[in-house]
């Protein structure tokens, strides 16, 4: 039997080929593509560091950058989850605006308790997601069309409900969510706990993989898995030592963790990757596509809710006409730069976060350099194109290898 083993002859010392599903190789299968993106990000940061005489890499500016990126990051999380199943969401920007209108009308015009207002706004987001999911899964209209329509009428309803006027200011307890900071001591403690937790989980996983004989030598694998996290934690601790961590960034971190867990560690996530990889195969394997995709949209709706509340709190009011404008495109761009495949079945939330950070860095850095906005848009467009092109080229090369 062994001598017929000619179809796949891999040297066991080589890293396993990247598989894209939920059981992907535990240690660093996607290292190549992730490190590529991180290298580009590092290059961009270095460039801005010199171009702004160091202003770009100050604690103060990095906190600002994190805040500026947070809204797109939140939207990008659900963009990844939908694109993985070959669905698009063009309605994010308008849906987020409508959530903001709900929140602002309730708390400003009707003096509803802020906590209740937030719950109602999130419920409204979920309802919008479920509504669109209904049209996609029960009626069978393509998600592109459903969400294109949603983009128009969610925006329209936002304008109708507010008569085109800004509803502000929000109660201070709400704006505090967006402007507040977790104190430095707390922040550093939290970073420490999170890093230790993450590292011990990864080490346990690698141990288990080693025990299964899937992995060769352990120490390099552990180093590869843990070193980036430790570096990131050190950087975060340094930034947090200035004023602490903004609540919004904590929110992004929690949502990312939840989404990553959902996508990579649950049955539901595995189903989503399978559906995106081959819908017919998923269906014939007994996966209920209708149900999975409906819930996919409901979760996107939860995303509208959270993003809408965060955005509205950040700008301290609802602006039906312009809140979240083009957010859907930024979110999709972040997801794509982060390695999510438009043809489905492949994509990671963490990647999208780095993608959002890259786009945000360009905005922030160019603003510091006083580059006019027209040039900023042009530069971002070119970066999007290049990022995807580099990804394609490197993937072709890794296939050749």
């Amino acid at each position, binding site marked *: *039997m062994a001598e*017929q*083993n*000619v*179809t*796949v*002859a*891999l*040297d*066991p010392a080589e890293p*396993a*080929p990247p*598989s*894209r*599903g*939920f*059981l*992907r*190789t*535990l240690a660093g*299968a996607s290292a190549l593509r992730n490190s590529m993106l991180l290298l580009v990000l590092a290059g961009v940061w270095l460039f801005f560091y010199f171009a702004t005489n160091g202003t770009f890499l100050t604690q103060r500016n990095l906190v600002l950058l994190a805040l500026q990126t947070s809204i797109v990051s939140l939207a990008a999380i659900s963009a990844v989850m939908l694109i993985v199943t070959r669905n698009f969401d063009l309605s994010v920007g308008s849906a987020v605006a409508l959530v903001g209108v709900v929140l602002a009308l309730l708390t400003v015009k009707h003096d509803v308790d802020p906590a209740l207002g937030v719950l109602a706004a999130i419920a409204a987001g979920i309802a919008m997601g479920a509504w669109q999911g209904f049209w996609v899964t029960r009626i069978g209209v393509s998600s592109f069309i459903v969400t294109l329509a949603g983009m128009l009428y969610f925006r329209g309803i936002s304008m109708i409900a507010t008569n085109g006027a800004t509803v502000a200011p929000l109660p201070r307890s709400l704006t505090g969510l967006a402007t507040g900071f977790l104190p430095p001591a707390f922040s550093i403690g939290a970073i420490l706990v999170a890093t230790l937790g993450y590292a011990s989980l990864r080490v346990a*996983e690698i141990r*288990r*993989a080693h025990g*299964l004989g*899937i992995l060769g030598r352990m120490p390099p694998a552990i180093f590869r898995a843990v070193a980036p996290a430790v570096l990131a934690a050190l950087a975060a601790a340094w930034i947090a030592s200035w004023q602490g961590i903004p609540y919004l960034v904590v929110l992004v971190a929690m949502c990312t963790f939840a989404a990553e867990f959902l996508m990579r*560690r*649950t*049955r*539901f996530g*595995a*189903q989503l*990757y*399978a559906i995106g*990889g*081959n819908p*017919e*195969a*998923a*269906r*014939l*394997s*007994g*996966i*209920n596509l209708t*149900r999975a995709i409906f819930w996919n949209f409901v979760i996107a709706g939860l995303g509208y809710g959270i993003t809408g509340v965060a955005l509205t709190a950040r700008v301290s009011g609802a602006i039906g006409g312009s809140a979240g404008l083009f957010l859907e495109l930024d979110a999709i761009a972040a997801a794509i730069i982060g390695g999510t495949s438009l043809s489905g*079945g*492949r994509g990671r939330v963490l990647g999208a976060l780095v993608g959002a950070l890259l786009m945000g860095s360009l905005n922030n850095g160019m603003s510091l350099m006083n580059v006019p906005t027209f040039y900023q848009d042009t530069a971002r467009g070119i970066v999007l194109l290049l990022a995807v092109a580099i990804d394609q080229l490197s993937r072709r090369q890794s296939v050749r*290898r």
Partner: protein
Amino acid sequence: MHGVGPVATAPVLVARGLTKRFPGVLALDDVGFAIRPGEIVALLGQNGAGKSTLIQIFAGAHPAGGYDGDLTLGGEPFRPSSVAEAEAAGVALVPQEVNVVPDLTIAENIALNDEPTRWGFIDIGERIRRAKAALADFGLDLDPALPMSALDLATQQLVVIARALAKRARLLILDEPTAALTENESRRLFERMRALKAKGVAIIFVSHRLGEVFAICDRIVVMRDGRIRGHHGIADISRRGVVDEMVGATGADEDTAPAGDSATGAVALELRNFNVFDSGGRRRVESLDLILRRGEVVGLFGLLGAGCIEAALAAYGAWPGRHEGAVLIDGKAATIAAPSEAVPLGLGLMAQDRRDCLIGDQSIADNIGIASLASISRLGILDIGAGRRRARDIAASIAIKTASIDAEVRTLSGGNQQKVQIARWLAASTRILIMIDPTRGVDVGARREIKRLWSELAARGHAILIASTDAEELVDACDRVVVMGHGRRVGELAARDLTEQKLLRMATDG
């Protein structure tokens, strides 16, 4: 057997010292090959033997320069860098999978990429004329203005072959052309092949059906592990000898028929007065009664359109139309409207086209786990270690040949992909396996192994229903075969009476 004329002429295509490497695999190792005008040569070998690589090199799918060795066509050096270039030189390949554009008309499909033009615009009249000529030349009575999607799979295949023939090929390469054809259609294809042969066209014929090979070919070339292992005149070798040469063993054991005392198991699946309709409301299966017991391998045989595939899909909830009648699982009535309702009841399906069942870009482990995520998760949270361990153990237990369960499924051979599907249902503890044309496009050696696997599964108490349009794959695998014709049950054959001839006779009588 050898015609005097063809043998005397110079070869149309000669290959010398062809060597082609893929990462980690030597696909072709110093292969020499020659074919003369008017010759039909069978190219045989198991999957992975190098057949596909060889014919793809001839057809320009692997550009010249990517391999060592040289080719001559009609005595001239032949270095095709693309399929179009090879076609222009007179070498046409008809691939195994039917590749058509379903929304275009037959004429548009035939003219695809070679549209007749006048002043830069497509000459529609000429396109229809050419299509008509191509179809008539092949004895196909079809309206070229029909959309391709209006044809069944077999007719589509014939149109694809007609298209290749229309290109005035000197060398025609047919890769498993009869896989989707009925007996009658195959006969028609063979007639055309003989007519082409008389005109001096050389034909390379790749098939796993040895009966056809011996009926139509002049010579047999057998490949194994990237090398040519034998050249034979058709009269100089037996079927048995060919199979032995492909498998690389001498005096290999014959397939053992599964044990006969199968009627003792409990009834696993029963269809009573089962009717299936297509989405247009037309009845495709009429009052079918069928019993499948544990430990049994039962065939459901019929020619294309006889209703056996429709019945099997409907029982699993995967048929797009409506169905009526009772489905009983372990004696209990069940309503199954979708595969997601069938799987929890212990049913599993292996569809006709592997690409419909496997996620090519995902790993073996993922593909094995996909139907049984519930059993490796608690409260919806996956135990990834347990999933991998299970996938690895099952893959090893049915001898899936791979270095790692992390290998992407599309890198596996057809037989191994089929095993990944079996592994998926083993992981899901499926008791009733429904398979549709399960060995389509699987080579002889792997067929043997897969059939052995079926009888092992049956012995362990699984019930297997094989819906098939290929009598050959049922004959030495089933305990009994239910035969269908025109949507109705027309008979049943027990294992001891089972022959291809009897099955075909029953199916065509009905």
